[in-house]
């Protein structure tokens, strides 16, 4: 029976494909993880291992995934099935990991919506502490923490003290989550037809906002402090193996390899598309965006740190002025140190009484508070924004940018899940495309309501840290080995030459066959060692009485969930291989008896 090739939907033009890949790869990690790594591992010096890993690991693996998708013209399950029926499990593992990712990732978009909707007020709700119930002073929890932390932990998350206390579903967050899923559904409803148009906005708008923020950030008072702090290279960090490991993992996860999204995007390409050029372009733009975003972030950091430092100094000045009844305005930040010495010698008794309350204000320690993840966006950035002029405008711009980044990545995630489903004849013959996408969105939304519980943020962190990390490394390792050694590197090279007309460069061949697999194996071993050596897994819980995060141990059932997350995707690789092997043996057994 001859198989018909259905008309496969395609991108309107190659630019849409490139923008889709950029929109998917450039996500929140570029904005809130790279600046943190840059600061922690040597500032300007971190760029050296980062760029080396980009060339050695990022570009080859990205090219590999795009080439596989474009050649096989199917989603991840079909593509790996074509390479070898034993490897269909790799595709299934990719789909499951994408499913976990889309479950929790859209919650971030719902938080962005929440903050966006609250930005249309004057003053911004996180700029000051609310009053307590009898209106005598500010709320206790808010006084101990800060107003932005209070708004995040209490008003947004309404977080419980530990993961065991689940609380109730926060209806405001649930509404925002439903809205986030409706927006995603709107974008993927028509497949590449609609996705291809939406990526123009989700890919390009963040750059506009970043440029505006760059101009604003560089003109802020104190921005130079942040930039100087970030870019002074601490060369001794290059000798630290953690630096190289973190550079490798950052490149790996930032490009979104192994989820099947890149394979799905490339499967909608024309066969003659030059995916080598596109792979290089996308990976370079992704890294450039990370560096660009960290410049903006550190300008803002510098502003915030300088502001806090000057507030601290002013508090000390006020304290001394009140204690010694000096003339108002006599003490300035310039003469503070010598006046402190003078007062200590002239009034030793009073000075020693007040000495304990004098904080040592240090700009360095303010800059040192390196934050990553949701804390950076929703606590640190909002703190900087509230002190700018016209904070509503900056707040709206910032959260619209976060939304675009998040939705762009969500489009890739959902495409990774949908493409294999729409490729499968069994499902696509029974349900139209719109119904399949709708079903996926509804299922994800309902499960995602778990993250709107009071303990939801703790579950979010579990998914964020464990659902994709181990699994992806293994999946990409199997992918590389499969293409090079099971399908055959020479055969793949011939396919690419027939497809695109260009000969495969020796560089890619060496990377795919030797360097990248070795790199991934060493990363995997590092992760395993790190997990074994850490012992009990801990998480950061918000303590309302102290107004800060405290470490706690995960309970048994949380650890069970973590193991489930890792195992449930990976187990399909050996299971399906075994299943196919058994089925083939049975078929061969039948045919041999017939003969």
């Amino acid at each position, binding site marked *: 029976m001859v*198989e018909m090739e259905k008309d496969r939907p395609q991108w309107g033009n190659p630019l849409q494909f490139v923008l889709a890949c950029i929109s998917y790869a450039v996500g929140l990690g570029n904005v809130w993880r790279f600046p943190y790594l840059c600061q922690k591992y040597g500032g300007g010096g971190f760029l050296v291992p980062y760029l080396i890993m980009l060339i050695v690991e990022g570009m080859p693996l990205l090219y590999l995934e795009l080439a596989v998708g474009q050649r096989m013209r199917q989603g991840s399950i079909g593509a790996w099935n074509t390479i070898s029926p034993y490897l269909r499990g790799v595709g299934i593992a990719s789909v499951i990991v994408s499913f976990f990712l889309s479950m929790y990732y859209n919650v971030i978009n719902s938080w962005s*919506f929440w903050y966006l*909707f609250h930005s249309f007020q004057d003053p911004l709700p996180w700029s000051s502490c609310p009053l307590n119930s009898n209106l005598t002073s500010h709320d206790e929890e808010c006084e101990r923490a800060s107003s932005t932390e209070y708004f995040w932990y209490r008003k947004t998350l309404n977080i419980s003290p530990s993961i065991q206390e689940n609380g109730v579903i926060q209806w405001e967050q649930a509404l925002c989550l439903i809205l986030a899923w409706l927006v995603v559904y709107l974008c993927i*409803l028509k497949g590449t037809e609609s996705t291809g148009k939406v990526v123009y906005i989700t890919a390009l708008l963040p750059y506009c906002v970043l440029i505006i923020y760059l101009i604003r950030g560089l003109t802020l008072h104190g921005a130079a402090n942040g930039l100087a702090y970030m870019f002074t290279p601490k060369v001794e960090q290059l000798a630290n193996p953690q630096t190289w490991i973190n550079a490798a993992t950052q490149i790996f996860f930032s490009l979104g390899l192994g989820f099947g999204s890149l394979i799905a995007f490339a499967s909608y390409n024309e066969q003659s598309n030059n995916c080598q050029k596109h792979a290089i372009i996308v990976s370079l733009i992704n890294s450039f965006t990370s560096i660009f975003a960290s410049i903006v972030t550190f300008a803002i950091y510098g502003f915030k740190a300088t502001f806090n430092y000057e507030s601290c100094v002013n508090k000390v000045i*006020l304290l001394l*002025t009140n204690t010694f*009844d*000096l003339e108002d305005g006599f003490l300035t930040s310039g003469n503070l140190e010598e006046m402190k010495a003078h007062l200590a010698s002239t009034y030793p008794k009073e000075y020693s009484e007040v000495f304990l309350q004098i904080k040592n204000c240090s700009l360095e320690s303010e800059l040192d508070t390196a934050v990553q993840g949701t804390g950076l966006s929703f606590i640190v950035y909002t703190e900087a924004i509230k002190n700018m002029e016209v904070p509503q405008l900056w707040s709206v711009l910032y959260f619209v940018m976060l939304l675009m980044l998040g939705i762009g990545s969500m489009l890739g995630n959902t495409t990774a899940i949908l493409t294999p489903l729409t490729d499968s004849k069994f499902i696509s013959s029974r349900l139209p495309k719109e119904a399949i996408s709708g079903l996926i969105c509804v299922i994800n939304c309902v499960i995602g309501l778990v993250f709107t519980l009071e303990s939801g943020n703790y579950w979010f962190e579990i998914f964020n840290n464990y659902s994709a990390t181990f699994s992806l490394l293994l999946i990409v390792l199997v992918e590389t080995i499969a293409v090079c050694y099971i399908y055959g590197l020479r055969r793949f090279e011939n396919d690419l030459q027939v497809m695109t007309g260009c000969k495969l460069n020796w560089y890619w061949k060496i990377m795919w066959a030797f360097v990248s697999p070795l790199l991934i194996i060493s990363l995997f071993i590092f992760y395993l060692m790190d997990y074994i050596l850490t012992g009990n897994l801990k998480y950061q819980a918000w303590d309302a009485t102290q107004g800060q995060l405290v470490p706690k141990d995960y309970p048994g059932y949380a650890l069970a969930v973590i193991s489930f997350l890792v195992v449930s995707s990976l187990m399909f690789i050996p299971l399906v291989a075994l299943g196919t092997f058994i089925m083939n043996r049975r078929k061969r057994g039948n045919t041999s008896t017939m003969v």
Partner: protein
Amino acid sequence: MLVALFPTLCLVTVIHAQLCRPDAENAFKVRLSLKTALGDKAYAWNRNEEYLFKAMVAFSLRTLSNRETIEISNVLLCNITKRVSFWFVVTDPSKNQTLPASEVQEAIRMNRNRINNAFFLNDQTLEFLEIPTTFGPPTEPSTPTWIITFGAVFFIVAVGIVLLIISGIHKRRRKSKASRETGDVEDKHETMVTIENGIPCDTLDSKEGRINRAFPADDEKFTPL
């Protein structure tokens, strides 16, 4: 007569000094930060400003129901420092005592805003130590602002989804109608069908595009190496 006046004056000042001193009973400390609040436009604190302050305190007390006879001379200031900070007490016009602290506190709290405005200062730059600031009641609109924006975005997105779904259904109905029509046309011409290589030519002319179904789509037919 002048000789009699002199000791009375001394007595009065002595009594006043006893009533107003730091940490005296019913005395309050006031602290002003003029340069912090006004910068270059800060005025100098002199006796005229002190007079205004006494007047404001007396005014505040007069607003209390039973103290309408308070005069400026009943307000005593002392220990004025360069900071600028000083202590004050309010004496009872009928008796030779200070008014209870609770009354003074209530009066000041009720008129805090007017006292601040008289000096172009606010609660942080004109401090009455031990008199807590009264916070204004929080202004909350009846519907939280965010729900309005949420509702607008939700509505737009829902409308967009409904429109896209309906257009998809229309397109599919049109396509199935068209394929049904070409099927009817083929039935009528069944006797006149031309066959080449075992494949009816008509099926190759279908409107869905030119797909040569005889050509294998992918090389699954070939055994792997």
